[in-house]
């Protein structure tokens, strides 16, 4: 247990190192999340709007969920080589499925009566999407983004073993940082993930229309 005490001493003594690695960590996670977002959310929204491709959207998430993160990293490594690109590519592969599926389910699951009413009011399909479906689906779309983001921040830690940098670098390098440094980074990254989850849950709450709040909360395990 005294190891854990030493870990906190390490945190106190190495705030600069931790700050630098946290920034790297978050930038890797941020880049991967943004790329996944651009790839997955528009596609999911579009398929959901057409109410088409449910087979694709649901199965991508089933297969994606079954992909072990370390296996994806280790399969990507021979193709891309040691370094940040490998880590980012693997993270994108892991983050796309929950975002795509949530976006699809969110839009396709919008109350059909609301969509019909909007059509009856003379809205064109694009207006229905922009003014009815998207606002109603936003909380659930964001739930997918939140799940993926927290997952990416957690998994980026493994990147330390693949030359990705970030907080995993410290955990992967016990020779330099010794057990107290490794433990300190582990505790730090755990707190970082929890902080991200709490923050994103707060944003999700703000995006949820007041009337829908208090409905069963959509959290990390439902979509993933």
């Amino acid at each position: 247990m005294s190891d854990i005490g030493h870990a906190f001493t390490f945190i106190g003594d190495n705030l600069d190192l931790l700050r630098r690695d946290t920034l790297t960590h978050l930038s890797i996670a941020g880049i991967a999340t943004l790329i996944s977002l651009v790839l997955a959310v528009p596609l999911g929204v579009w398929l959901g709007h057409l109410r088409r491709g449910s087979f694709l959207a649901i199965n991508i998430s089933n297969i994606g969920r079954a992909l072990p993160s370390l296996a994806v990293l280790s399969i990507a490594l021979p193709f891309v080589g040691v370094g940040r690109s490998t880590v980012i590519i693997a993270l994108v592969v892991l983050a796309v499925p929950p975002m795509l599926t949530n976006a699809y389910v969110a839009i396709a699951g919008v109350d059909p009566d609301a969509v019909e009413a909007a059509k009856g009011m003379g809205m064109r399909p694009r207006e229905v999407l922009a003014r009815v479906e998207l606002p109603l689906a936003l909380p659930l779309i964001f739930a997918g983004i939140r799940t993926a983001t927290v997952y990416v921040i957690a998994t980026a830690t493994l990147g330390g073993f693949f030359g990705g940098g970030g907080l995993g670098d410290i955990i992967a390098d016990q020779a330099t940082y010794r057990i107290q440094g490794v433990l300190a980074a582990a505790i730090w990254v755990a707190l970082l993930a929890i902080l991200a989850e709490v923050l994103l849950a707060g944003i999700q709450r703000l995006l949820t229309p007041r009337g829908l709040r208090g409905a069963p909360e959509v959290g990390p395990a439902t979509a993933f």
Partner: protein
Amino acid sequence: MNALIAATVVPNFGGASSCVRDNGTFCWSWFSGRWGNTFWPALRQHLLLTTVAIAIGTAIAFGLTLLAHRDRRVGPPVTFVSGVLYTIPSLALFQILVPITGLTFLTVEIALVSYTLLILFRNFTTGLAEVPSEVREAARGMGLTRRQVLWRVELPLALPAMIAGLRIATVTVISLATVAALVGINQGLGVPIFDAIQGGAFKTELFAAGILAVALAIGADLLLLGVQRVLTPWAKARSR
């Protein structure tokens, strides 16, 4: 083999054939040579780690679900605690547990079980909550006791959602169990991956272990999907 006499290319992955020395894409002979003493035992170990974690996790989550079913106040704190556990990155949790429980099977299991709880508890309670109240009322009206309603009506109806939770938990555990090797625990399919990284990214070993882990996860998922279809033929198995 006279490969040892020939000037070996660095890094020499302890190997003999030219494929291994050149770090070729996939060296079948190396893989089949290591199947019996490396990959098959790692795969079996991985399966054992997963099965034990799912069994313990299911027992705990089921107990908590019954408690929450009886007393509404149980749900929120269980969800909160298991949610926090679920959010901790696996590498960090393994690492934090090592000073306490050592580089052991127990360490892996504590971490793996803690990741199953949120998924299982949430799916179990959702399954029970989604039982239509008319059905419950009808069963009560037929004179079934509360306990009989639970075991004969509510739980069977909740089964599809419960097995869906088991599927998610199982693939999650298979995934996270690979990470244990990175903190130095010699268990499961993560061991050859870690070995390959440290040995200069030996491709054959990375591909072999990575693909085995993916195959195990997808295989387990499909198996449980089959179980779900057999046990609950009335419910069109919708994956959620």
